[in-house]
């Protein structure tokens, strides 16, 4: 929509500069200053004021619930058709959460765009002129992106789980009190939060959206399979489980856990990836010309 707004006339306020003079006292020089909570508030205003952020975040929620419901219906049909032991190896919780594969890419994109859009239009320079120490801006983005992602994804995961279980129905469905179910449901929201931060870190390092989104896609969806094919099993078995997607599965997955880390170790490894990307992002953001 390239509608151009009619240019408003610079009216009688054109020289209304008295406010500028007086505001000195009224703003209260002493109360002005950069603090971390203020930078967080600024980043919250930025994220909240872009409709695209909410559309994207909501589409991740819709994907989770929609794919979960479809998978659950498929599982339920298979069972009804007397599906030959299929249900034995397919966990109802994992089935209901099978939208993760796609949802992780979507929240990753939200994280990427949070910073690459500012590189693209020059807003980051304006921001850094207001917060010249720079790093508070990155950490405030971490707080806001993590907060919003988790706040949207946690209820989404519960909704996805319950809808899935209703569809699967009968004796086969899982309940929250079953072993590991609560961990998988909450862990899935946590994993998506981590991926959003991974996107933020990558976007900050690469400074443009296309490269960062491509890298997220490759890291989460292509690299695990590719390395599985290329590496000899002796090496692959010991290393592949440390990839972010596989480490995440240790937390979000219920079912056969061959070759996966323990849920606790998996969480730590995912956090380690996030810390590494954000650490590199912080060093580069501080050092490079904006």
């Amino acid at each position, binding site marked *: *929509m*390239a*509608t*151009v*707004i009619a*240019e*408003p*006339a*610079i*009216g009688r*306020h*054109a*020289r*209304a*500069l008295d*406010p*500028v*003079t007086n*505001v*000195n006292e009224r*703003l209260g*020089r002493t*109360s*002005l*200053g*950069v*603090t971390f909570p*203020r*930078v967080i*508030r*600024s*980043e919250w*205003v*930025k994220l909240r*004021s*872009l*409709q*695209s952020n909410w559309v994207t975040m909501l589409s991740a929620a819709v994907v989770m619930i929609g794919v979960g419901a479809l998978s659950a219906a498929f599982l339920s049909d298979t069972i009804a058709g007397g599906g030959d032991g299929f249900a034995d190896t397919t966990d109802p919780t994992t089935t209901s959460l099978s939208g993760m594969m796609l949802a992780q890419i979507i929240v990753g994109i939200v994280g990427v765009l949070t910073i690459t*859009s*500012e590189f693209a*239009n*020059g*807003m980051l*320079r*304006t*921001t*850094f*002129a*207001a*917060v*010249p*120490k720079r790093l508070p801006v990155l950490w405030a983005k971490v707080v806001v992106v993590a907060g919003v992602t988790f706040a949207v994804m946690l209820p989404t995961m519960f909704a996805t789980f319950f809808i899935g279980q209703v569809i699967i129905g009968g004796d086969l469905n899982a309940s929250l009190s079953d072993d590991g179910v609560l961990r998988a449901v909450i862990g899935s929201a946590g994993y998506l939060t981590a991926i959003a931060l991974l996107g933020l870190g990558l976007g900050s390092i690469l400074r443009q959206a296309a490269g960062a989104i491509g890298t997220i896609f490759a890291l989460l969806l292509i690299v695990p399979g590719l390395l599985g094919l290329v590496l000899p099993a002796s090496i692959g078995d010991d290393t592949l489980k440390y990839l972010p997607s596989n480490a995440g599965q240790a937390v979000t997955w219920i079912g056969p856990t061959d070759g996966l880390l323990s849920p606790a170790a998996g969480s730590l490894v995912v956090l380690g990836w996030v810390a590494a990307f954000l650490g590199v992002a912080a060093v580069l953001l501080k050092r490079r*010309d*904006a």
Partner: protein
Amino acid sequence: MIIVDTITKSYGDKVAVDSLSFTVHPGVITGFLGPNGAGKSTTMRVIMGLDSPTSGHATVNGKSLADHRAPLHEVGALLEAKAIHPGRSAYDHLSALAATNGIPDRRVREVLDIVGLSSVAKKRAGAFSLGMGQRLGIAGALLGDPDTIILDEPVNGLDPEGIVWIRNLLKDLADQGRTVFVSSHLISEMGLMAEHLIVVGRGKLIADTSVDELRHMAVDDSVEVDTPDPPGLTRVLLGDGVAIDTTDRPHVLRVTGLPAATIGDRAFAAGIPLHSLIPREASLEEAFMRLTHDAVEYQPVAA
């Protein structure tokens, strides 16, 4: 007050700014003038702490920007037009900026009023014209009621009314005792706006002078004389320190070294008719061209 102290900034082996030093004082509008590619924007980014200089340093109001508690209250800058997310409204853009330094939202409404964007404050900035984008950028620069204002080519994209407006605005800000530093590649614009000029070319300081001094330098003391008798006039005018050149018009001579009045008097005394007698106008453009002649990055190469 802005102090730029022997700043050098190179990108690889290309030197964008070369041992540049100057001081921008409060109370007057200081123009930052130079051809495109002279290093003006780079210098401004270094002052704003966005680019780190290869050597040297810059301070605003006595400190580098990062050492100020409330940077927006010290210096407001417009570095590029429409440095704003197209999907965000002008109000939200300024509100996010204000929040970082603890500036209340009523100040956001105030600066929107000052630049005349209140009526479109809730519209997506993507639909703004370049001129409106400039005005939004100026609103952002005024947000923290700063002592120092830095604007990079603020006149770009403004309509004539907008240009007059910004001239008056900057004049008022300077009159209030603020430091106002404005870049432009247009000497004519600076001649109308600024009192003092920092002129750069190829990253080096060429002149640090008042506009009046520059105008003075520009005075060319030649006079164009149109006469039906060029040889006769030449005879009565020739003397020490007087140069007479022919021009592309056969009856017109260019006389250097004599005031127009003397030329007229001598012609009258000798009975030589003059059809016109025109002292050449002082031109800031020419002074600027002369100053920057050697510094222009890409001189046309003679074939």
